[in-house]
């Protein structure tokens, strides 16, 4: 009994110390960057802090942000998913078609939302199977499905816009709760759930272990392939949710450019949020901040009248800076 008391009292100073040691700049760099960005934006443009602008930024962010949440798991486990943008279009088109087939009323919408999540998970599972069973590198496998999903979308829709006939559908993506848009709620609630999943469950611990060292994980009796596979399924499911949010907001999906470059935005959000592209470590809240940083930058470029053609350049530069900072802190 005595030793137990000793051990607890011994651990207290240790805990304190580590709490302090844990406050290193690298972990909080995304948060600091966000605060700096908000201050600069508020000074640079009087329109920035208007609530309507802020909710708009958050809404814009939420579509790719939701995908980035799933992508965080994929990247921490050591993978990458380039197919998410095309997958948004494919799931979006199929979902709207399903709603039109099911007809009016809320029931058909709820069924379609469920189907969208399942479809996304299914497409993610296809990616995951190719990667874990077929042993194709994630980069190549999802590069291939990126092309396949886009092409199937165009084929199914005959390259024409698919419009929902259900009058209620736009409310899903356009509605507000406590003057915050539904997609933003979905994004933040999902982020909270995913944070718990990553930090406080065995699954999350295993994802980090697999991404750090898959060999050690398998020698530790962890089902490595199953964990890796699951991250792609989770990634796909988040794509399904994002597809619903996006298509309901616009009440339609245009197969050629829906979800275009979403993979870039999602991966950028994850990397800016401090998750290592080499896998093994990262945080969900970092990804949320990363997504918001990207959103604010886009917003500011708009407010300040910078050519939209230059936005890609700025985004690219931000990614490079984020990775450089990670690299430095790792050294």
């Amino acid at each position: 009994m005595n030793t137990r008391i000793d051990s607890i009292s011994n651990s207290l100073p240790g805990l304190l110390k580590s709490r302090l040691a844990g406050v290193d700049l690298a972990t909080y760099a995304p948060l600091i960057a966000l605060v700096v960005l908000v201050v600069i934006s508020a000074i640079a443009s009087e329109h920035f802090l208007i609530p309507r602008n802020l909710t708009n930024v958050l809404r814009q962010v939420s579509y790719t942000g939701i995908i980035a949440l799933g992508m965080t798991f994929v990247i921490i486990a050591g993978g990458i998913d380039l197919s998410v943008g095309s997958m948004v279009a494919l799931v979006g088109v199929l979902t709207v078609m399903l709603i039109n087939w099911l007809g009016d009323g809320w029931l058909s919408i709820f069924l379609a939302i469920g189907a969208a999540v399942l479809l996304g998970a299914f497409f993610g599972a296809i990616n995951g199977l190719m990667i874990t069973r077929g042993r194709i590198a994630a980069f190549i496998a999802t590069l291939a499905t990126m092309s396949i999903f886009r092409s199937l979308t165009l084929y199914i829709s005959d390259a024409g816009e698919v419009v929902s006939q259900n009058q209620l559908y736009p409310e899903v993506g356009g509605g507000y709760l406590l003057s915050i848009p539904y997609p933003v709620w979905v994004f933040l609630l999902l982020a909270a759930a995913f944070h718990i999943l990553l930090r406080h469950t065995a699954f999350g611990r295993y994802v980090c272990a697999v991404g750090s060292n898959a060999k050690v994980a398998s020698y530790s009796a962890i089902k490595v392939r199953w964990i890796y596979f699951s991250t792609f399924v989770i990634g796909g499911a988040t794509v399904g949710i994002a597809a619903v949010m996006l298509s309901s907001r616009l009440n339609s999906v245009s197969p050629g450019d829906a979800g275009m470059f979403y993979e870039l935005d999602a991966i950028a959000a994850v990397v800016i949020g401090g998750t290592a592209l080499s896998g093994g470590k990262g945080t969900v809240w970092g990804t949320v901040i990363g997504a918001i940083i990207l959103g604010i930058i886009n917003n500011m470029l708009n407010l300040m009248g910078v050519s939209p053609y230059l936005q890609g350049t700025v985004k690219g530069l931000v990614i490079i800076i984020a990775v450089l900072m990670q690299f430095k802190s790792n050294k």
Partner: protein
Amino acid sequence: MTTKSAPPLMEVRGITKSFAGVQVLHHVTLDIQAGEVLGILGENGAGKSTLLKILSGIYQKTDGQILIEGEEVDLKSSAAAKALGIAMIPQEFNLISTLNVFENIFLGNEQKKYRLLDKKAMRKKTRELLQDLETEIDPNALIESLSVAQKQMVEIAKALVRDSRILIMDEPTTVLTSHEVKVLFKLVNKLRARGVTVIFISHKLKEVKQLCDRLAILRDGYLISLEPVTNLDEADMARKMVGRELNQIYPAKSTPSADVIFSVSDLSVKGVVSSVSFDLHAGEVLGFAGLIGAGRTEMAEAIMGLRQRASGVFRIKGQPATLRTPREAVERGLAYLSEDRQGKGLIMNFDIPQNITLISLRKYIRGLISRKQEIRQANDYRQRFDIKAATLQTHLINLSGGNQQKVYLAKWMDTEPEILILDEPTRGIDVNTKKEIYHFIQSLTEQGLAVIVISSEMEEIIGLSNRVIVMRSGSVMGTLEGDDINEEEIMYYAAGLKKSVA
């Protein structure tokens, strides 16, 4: 002060080296004469590797001086050492397997003609060099097609093409067959005749006695002696190397019970293990001896469900066990500490509790993972094993090898195993930690656990085991008990000179 003779080729004065406050070399002073073969002998963890890494510029000394021909030099990188004519033949070769022999030999040192690679000249030079070394390696052969011994020759040729004066060989014979060792020794003698100085690191007494002119013996980071080989016999060397009687390190062996707790029959893995069978008793330490590549690790991995088996039947306490996956093996009370602590054992960017609970994580789930409980448990292990770390939240990468090994041990003890397979449990750790681990193994057997120890250190096998199984090329050559457990008997079986038909 007047010196008549020229200064020695190389002088090491008061070299000290610390890692994170732990001193691993204590004021080592020695001289290296031109054209001699200097043996450096010591147990694992004695500081041999650290010393040679300092001499070849890979590590930086904490204190002391290095002189070459009387001039102080700064070996700040391996490139700096190479420029001074010091080359190291590492244990793990630095060859690029997808390039061929001559490309590797001239890597970073390419010969050019009109700004293009002069492959003809490089091939010719390589051929001459290899002929000179009396090896029949084709300069155009891909490295991946070569045997280990041939790769070593290529490494040596690579060092010679740069006109190295001092060649450091880090335990070059561990990966060689006895015939290949003879070829290597012939080569070393040739190099000596050509005036090349060779520093030969080993922990094998016979080899050193046979090959070297002088011998430096290290123990626990101190230079114990430096004298001509002719002054020492093998018993002297062993005494200086170990520095203590064996029974001080190894606890008294406990008496195993007659109950068979685990039995393996006809275990085979395609190409590496053939039809291994044995019984393991409660409270027993069963040693597995053999040369590197004897199939012992593969056998252990096959038991744990980490490798595909061609055949094999297991019984645990009389009950059949399929052991299809690592998870099933863990649930049946098996534990396997891999020889490759960093590559297969621990997640280096996880902290101590996260590593300890990785296999047994289910125990800590109260809806979510109970971090509090993880920390409490980790703290218990920290005290029980005397794990030295700044805090429990220290990442494993920042712990010393010995402390990592203790965390690894704790990780498997947390699965509450009954059968423990320890693969090279003391590789690369210091003598004190070794002793702690030996005593811990002994205390486990007292509690009735059964332990399999796979080790390449003969002393360890002899000091710990109640019985010893010797393997060679994937097969069991014999089982030794009692007084038969000695170095000679084990070597006879391991080398294939003896085989018991049981």
